[in-house]
């Protein structure tokens, strides 16, 4: 139904382009126009489709809420809670659609009848109103096509608004992220104290699972302590950086300062392949090859190694991050002005001395920025940890044991069917917002540092 209406509006919009252009061409045959005929077509098409589409989408957004209020008005005198009302409404809807299975009482039946009636009425009203708006605006636009109307300006202003609206999309996404996370997280902190979440050292959400009814608040208090997850996240990120910083930084320096043009041309894109491999592939590699390898080495040294060790996950994550550091530090080092190098060479310094004493300090802010970006990447990495480093949240500093991270726990909690309103599900959103805040913090610092650095040398 909606699809038909939209296609009808679009079809009318397209055809009105030709009407507008035709009318303009007829005027043009006798008099001079102030804009190209096609702008008259665009003008008519915009007036035809835009108001109708706007009314249509507004209607579609608000209709469900209004219908719901109409239906639930009958139940208001029964003193029901919000959840019970929601349940009744779901039942009424299912009954009206014929998908309901369960007891049917008279009240529900009446409501379902009413629902169908209101829905039909709303549908008819929508079609009438949208088409009326379309005809009104179209006829207004059609009669305003005259020879001396400036048609290009309104069309271009409209286009500019379209462009502006599109650029708001990024802001909308950010707002969407913040609000969807906050909404659930706030509900989570109504049942679990924020203090217990941030400073609790015991993470075991499965404990709160209670069939039917509310979980015991005493259990809740002890089940959602996120310290092991924060610690695990930064621990694995730290292991990853131990691999990525030396290799990445040295390759970046080599590529920028020593490599011949030909080596650079091939080596750089090949190293960047490492960043293009999907993380789930790294996860598989870590779980199947690196994990057992680490375990074997550890066992031969007489160490107790879990087959899902933080070391394996961290090391593989480090390999994934190498190209971020090498490419960014390569760019940063190449941006250091040549005269700093020349000055150092003129004083008799060797190439490596120049790099260590002159170029590296000069490029340090940029390198720090690139490392911070890489850390934020490691903190947000999910699949490698899920697949290679276990799911039990141990509070440990032993790289040979398994640990879990914020991201891995989000996946563990939300895989399969989720129930909104369950503290476990809400806990995932609380973890999500802490992850978002941490990475945002790292990114903002990194981007500011890099920007300051660029300004210094440009």
């Amino acid at each position, binding site marked *: 139904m909606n699809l038909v209406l939209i296609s009808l509006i679009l079809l009318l919009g397209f055809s009105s382009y030709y009407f507008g252009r035709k009318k303009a061409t007829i005027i043009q045959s006798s008099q001079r126009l102030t804009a190209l005929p096609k702008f008259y077509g665009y003008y008519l098409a915009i007036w035809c489709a835009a108001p109708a589409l706007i009314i249509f989408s507004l209607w579609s957004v608000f209709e469900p809420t209004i219908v719901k209020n109409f239906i639930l008005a009958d139940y208001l005198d029964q003193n029901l809670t919000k959840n019970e009302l929601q349940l009744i409404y779901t039942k009424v809807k299912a009954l009206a659609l014929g998908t309901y299975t369960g007891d049917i009482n008279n009240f529900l039946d009446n409501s379902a009848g009413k629902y169908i009636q209101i829905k039909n009425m709303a549908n008819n009203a929508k079609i009438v109103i949208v088409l009326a708006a379309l005809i009104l605006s179209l006829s207004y636009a059609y009669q305003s096509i005259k020879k001396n109307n400036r048609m290009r300006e309104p069309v271009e202003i409209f286009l*500019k608004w379209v*462009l502006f609206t599109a650029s708001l999309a990024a802001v909308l*996404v950010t707002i*969407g*992220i913040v609000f*969807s*996370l906050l909404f659930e997280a706030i509900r989570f902190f109504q049942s679990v104290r924020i203090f217990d979440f941030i400073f609790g050292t015991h993470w075991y959400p499965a404990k709160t699972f209670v069939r039917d009814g509310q979980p015991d608040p005493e259990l809740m208090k002890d089940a959602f302590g996120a310290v092991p997850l924060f610690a695990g996240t930064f621990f694995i990120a730290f292991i990853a950086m131990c691999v990525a910083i030396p290799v990445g930084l*040295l390759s970046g320096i080599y590529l920028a300062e020593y490599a011949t043009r030909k080596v650079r041309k091939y080596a750089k894109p090949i190293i960047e392949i490492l960043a293009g491999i999907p993380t789930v592939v790294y996860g598989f590699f870590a779980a199947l090859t690196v994990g057992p390898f680490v375990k074997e080495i550890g066992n031969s040294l007489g160490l107790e190694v879990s087959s899902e060790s933080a070391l394996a996950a961290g090391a593989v994550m480090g390999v994934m991050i190498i190209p971020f550091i090498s490419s960014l530090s390569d760019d940063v080092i190449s941006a250091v002005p040549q005269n700093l190098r020349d000055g150092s060479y003129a004083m008799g310094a*060797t190439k490596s001395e120049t790099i260590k004493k002159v170029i590296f300090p000069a490029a340090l802010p940029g390198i720090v920025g690139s490392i911070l970006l890489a850390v934020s990447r490691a903190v947000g990495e999910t699949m490698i940890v899920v697949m290679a480093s276990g799911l039990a949240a141990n509070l440990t500093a032993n790289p040979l044991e398994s640990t879990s991270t914020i991201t891995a726990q989000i996946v563990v909690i939300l895989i399969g069917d989720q129930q909104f309103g369950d503290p476990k599900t809400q806990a995932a959103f609380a973890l999500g917002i802490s992850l978002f805040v941490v990475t945002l913090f790292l990114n903002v610092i990194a981007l500011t540092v890099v920007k300051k650095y660029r300004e210094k040398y440009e």
Partner: protein
Amino acid sequence: MNEAKRKLLNKRYRAEANFKLFGQIAIGLALLFLAVFMYKIFSKGYTAFQKTWIVTEVHYDKELMLIETDNPSLEDLENADYYDIAYKAMTRLDPSLPEEDDRQLIQMVAFTYEQEVKNHLLKNPSLLGKIAPIRLTASDDLDQVHKGNYPRDIPEEDRRVNDYQLKIYDMLNERGDILSKFNLSFFTNPDSREAELAGIASSFMGTVFSILVCLAFSFPIAVLAAIYLEEFAPKNKFTDFIEVNINNLAAVPSIVFGLLGLGVLLAVFNLPRSTPLVGGITLSLMTLPTIIIAARASLKAVPPSIREAALAMGASNMQTTMHHTVPLSMPGTLSGTIIGLAQALGETAPLILIGMVAFVNTIPGTPVDPAASLPVQIYIWSESAERGFVEKVSACIMVLLGFLILMNLAAQIIRHKFERKWN
């Protein structure tokens, strides 16, 4: 030059050589990681492109099939009973086996063997009443034995293939009745709990639909936004705010977008769970900043002289942008879009959160059917304990990497072939 100075100089030269060596080692290590990685995946995965069959004979006995008419139509064949003849086809491999042990033979082929016999007859109806050879899909354990991936020397009770089955396998192998051919069903079958039947068709279609939805949502919005920000936006606080927003959005972890998809698309807008539609929209939110950044860079690369020339000819700002700047920037924008889509193609975590991890054994026909995607399929299979899935995962990775390589190549070609160089 005295001795001390020479020593110092030598030390400095050595340090120089060492430093250079460290750089080379670092590059070498990075390349080594890549090589080991590729070798491991390919050496594990290439066998999945071969499929093992057991050849046996089947007697299409009308009586056992409960066909009563003399000239059965295709419909009769469709409704006939195949259980007995398929069962007999397997037991005839070793007639000496006592009846109560028949399961051991049946376990050597995939559980769909009855269906396979049926399909074979439906394709060749003239075989009815005759005895004809047929090839049946071997079970995944036997398949692994045949490919040499399964150790035969461990104690029998730890093995999923027992001594008797190995004996039959060896006999068949000697007779040449074990076939190994290209595994077409890996590409045409949907997912399955049985490794020998599992294929990537369902997840492949899921990926294609998600990427198309992602493209349809992200490309137009991103290009329009980039045009506004680069060509029309006034320099003020609000524009700065939008820019900062885009840059930060590009660095938000992908799993957060999954939470957004779950909390908004599924919970508020009530879109269908587990579908490529929701997956594609979630991915498009993630790809949006990447494409905006690429499109802005390539708009910026169009020299101002183009704009000035158009303006001097009397074109309006909008005409200059739409007729000249945007078309000239398209190659850069397109290659950026493809790279953004390639990133989205490999994403797993957000898709898991919106439920695309469900077991789907049908091939989705539209973006609103439940589906998995290739990376999620890798995750699902790698969580499975069965040995047969290991090579499947590697093969699936090879397919995924193949796609990524193709997309990146396309981006390179577009960039090099169509982009104008301005000097």
